């Protein structure tokens, strides 16, 4: 992968936060479109992290730890999320509910026109809730441990490991489902990779198959706008790798 040389020096300055005004906007517009330069920016930040490490030595006083832990203890308790991937879902649901309540309270004593607006909003909110509910049911069905997966094969061939990645480039949305996967060794996990048409593989989620060999990765964090040449799966350390360290066990192609 090669970066665009005309941006090389400005990318370094951008990583330092030293670009302003039009120069900064030009680089940001280019970064929106160029995965190679985005990757280079990440590497430049890694280089600058090394420069930051050169300052290491002094340790903070003990009171800093006490101050931090005391501040954390005062923060509102965080609800235990059943699964991280549902976090966006909860936010949407709560946001809709809180907004509806606030509007209902605010408009309670207002004139009929405002009441009509509230009514329309509530209708709209109810429709959104319905849509969210249906989508949630769909995702739950795809990922539920109770779901029974059937793999259809020709003749009497035994079921083979299979993976299906559904990817929408413009919104960076990825849904990946796998079946008949063999278990991974201890302290290892499967890692899904988005292989762009240009540039290096992008990590797209870690997973371990269940007892039946089924697994799913739903909406992993991905940069937007990356054109996928294919997807691949490697076996990596449990914490994941930033680039593949083993030969892919499965590779696919767009379709």
């Amino acid at each position, binding site marked *: 992968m090669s970066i665009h040389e005309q941006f090389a020096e400005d990318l370094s300055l951008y990583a330092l936060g*030293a670009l302003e005004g039009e120069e900064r906007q030009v680089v940001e517009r280019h970064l929106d479109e160029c995965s190679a330069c985005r990757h280079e920016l990440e590497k430049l930040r890694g280089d600058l992290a090394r420069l930051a490490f050169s300052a290491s030595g002094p340790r*903070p006083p003990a009171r800093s730890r006490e101050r*931090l*832990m005391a501040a954390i203890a005062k923060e509102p308790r965080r*609800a235990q*999320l059943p699964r991280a991937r549902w976090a966006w879902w909860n936010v949407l649901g709560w946001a809709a509910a809180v907004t509806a309540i606030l509007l209902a309270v605010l408009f309670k004593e207002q004139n009929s026109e405002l009441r009509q607006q509230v009514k329309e909003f509530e209708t709209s909110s109810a429709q959104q809730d319905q849509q969210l509910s249906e989508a949630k049911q769909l995702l739950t069905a795809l990922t539920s441990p109770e779901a029974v997966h059937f793999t259809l094969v020709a003749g009497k061939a035994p079921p083979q490991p299979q993976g299906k990645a559904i990817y929408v480039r413009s919104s960076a949305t990825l849904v990946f489902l796998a079946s008949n996967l063999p278990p991974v060794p201890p302290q290892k996990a499967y890692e899904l990779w988005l292989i762009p048409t240009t540039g290096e593989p992008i990590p797209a989620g870690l997973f371990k198959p269940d007892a039946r060999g089924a697994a799913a990765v739903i909406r992993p964090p991905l940069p937007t706008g990356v054109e996928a040449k294919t997807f691949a799966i490697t076996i990596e350390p449990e914490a994941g790798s930033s680039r593949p360290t083993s030969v892919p066990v499965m590779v696919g192609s767009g379709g």
Partner: protein
Amino acid sequence: MTGAASNVVSTDATLVSAIRSGDEQAMAQLYERYSAIVYSVALRVLGDTAAAEDILQEVFMQLWRTPGGFDSNRGSLPGWLAVIARNRAIDSLRKRRAETDITDVVVSIEPDLAGGAEWSRALEKIRSVLAGMPSLQRSALEMAFFQGLTHSEIAEKTGEPLGTIKTRIRTGILSLRKAFNP
């Protein structure tokens, strides 16, 4: 932080994941590992222990409140913390509001420098590269990074052409990279 990370069982990714569900002990472990890095960087930028403590507090509170800002699949936690600490310290130095959304910052660094012995060797190498750099190049790079000066400000301060400063900064950064990826 030397040696701290090598004695613990949990990976950074595991601890960050635990923070998402409000595990204060996980936060305490990450603080033990990386508070010295964050504090040192802030102290180098600000030159004031009280101000550096404030940045330390701010960075770890950010991690506590928005652990999703760090994506363990796409970078190293110490690298991310160091860069965030530097950016916040520069913002404080220049008395401006935080400019960068932390979720936008991905720090790619290979190999991961969290291990004890490996960390010491890496630190030695980084300092050796800096010591071997031409003094004007090192000076331009450190003014940009630790003082937050723009290339124009450095050019004005040193009386040298803007293009020369840009080249010095980029060459200096790439020297650090080359030492780890020959």
